[in-house]
């Protein structure tokens, strides 16, 4: 089954949504009192690999690069992916780029391993950030 957009492109599209949400997040939380608590940290006190992403995204959306990196470097990684993939998405929308070629099983497997490794690294980062290691 050929996908219209590759997974990195879809993640790039997700990055656009995150950028938009991050721009208005402070006003939203201030106005409603709502937030996005980490279930793991809420229940156990231990941060998850994705803790700090909301704060990091808000920092990045407001130009605070170093603060964003200190919260969670994955936000910057997503931003880079977004910048790289958005032109490709535009080209596909305009019909100027062919539908993406499916990855081989080996490439998919390697990508899954890389994603798990990145999540593990992020978890270590958050555990260190919260003083657990």
């Amino acid at each position: 089954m050929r996908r219209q957009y590759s997974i990195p492109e879809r993640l790039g599209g997700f990055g656009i949504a995150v950028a938009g949400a991050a721009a208005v997040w402070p006003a939203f939380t201030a106005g409603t009192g709502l937030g996005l608590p980490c279930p793991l940290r809420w229940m156990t006190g231990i941060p998850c690999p994705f803790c700090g992403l909301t704060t990091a995204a808000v920092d990045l959306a407001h130009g605070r690069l170093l603060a964003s990196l200190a919260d969670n470097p994955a936000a910057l990684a997503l931003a880079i992916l977004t910048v790289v993939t958005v032109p490709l998405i535009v080209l596909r929308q305009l019909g100027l780029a062919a539908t993406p070629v499916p990855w081989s099983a080996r490439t998919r497997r390697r990508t899954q391993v890389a994603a798990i490794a990145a999540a593990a690294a992020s978890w270590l980062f958050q555990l260190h950030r919260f003083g657990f290691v």
Partner: protein
Amino acid sequence: MNYASWIQRVGATIVDAIPFAILAGIGGAADSDMGAVFWIFYLIGVVYLIFNRWYLGGQGATIGKKALGLRLIGEQSGQPIGTAMAFVRDICHFVDSIICYIGYLFPLWDAKRQTIADKIVKTVVIKAA
């Protein structure tokens, strides 16, 4: 099958949330001390959520999904899943949430654009013809 994209599903969820947000906002504005008036509006909002997500959703599309031209159907049957299963599906969204909400991002890379809740109750969200 023409599966709904992640952003379409997010859009539908936002549209679904608007009436509840309006009701809660009116209740909060009318009664900032969270007295009886606030709770009346809040309960009306909860009734709306139940009607929208479980009854209408069980019929195939919540208000939000209808607005975006989406349908919720059983993966095997191709038919709406009914009120009871729509309720069960919402309970299963607990799994999507408990892993730091990553379950809600599954439609970004899943072949059938399913959340974990969708996989548990075997549903898919498609673009209505």
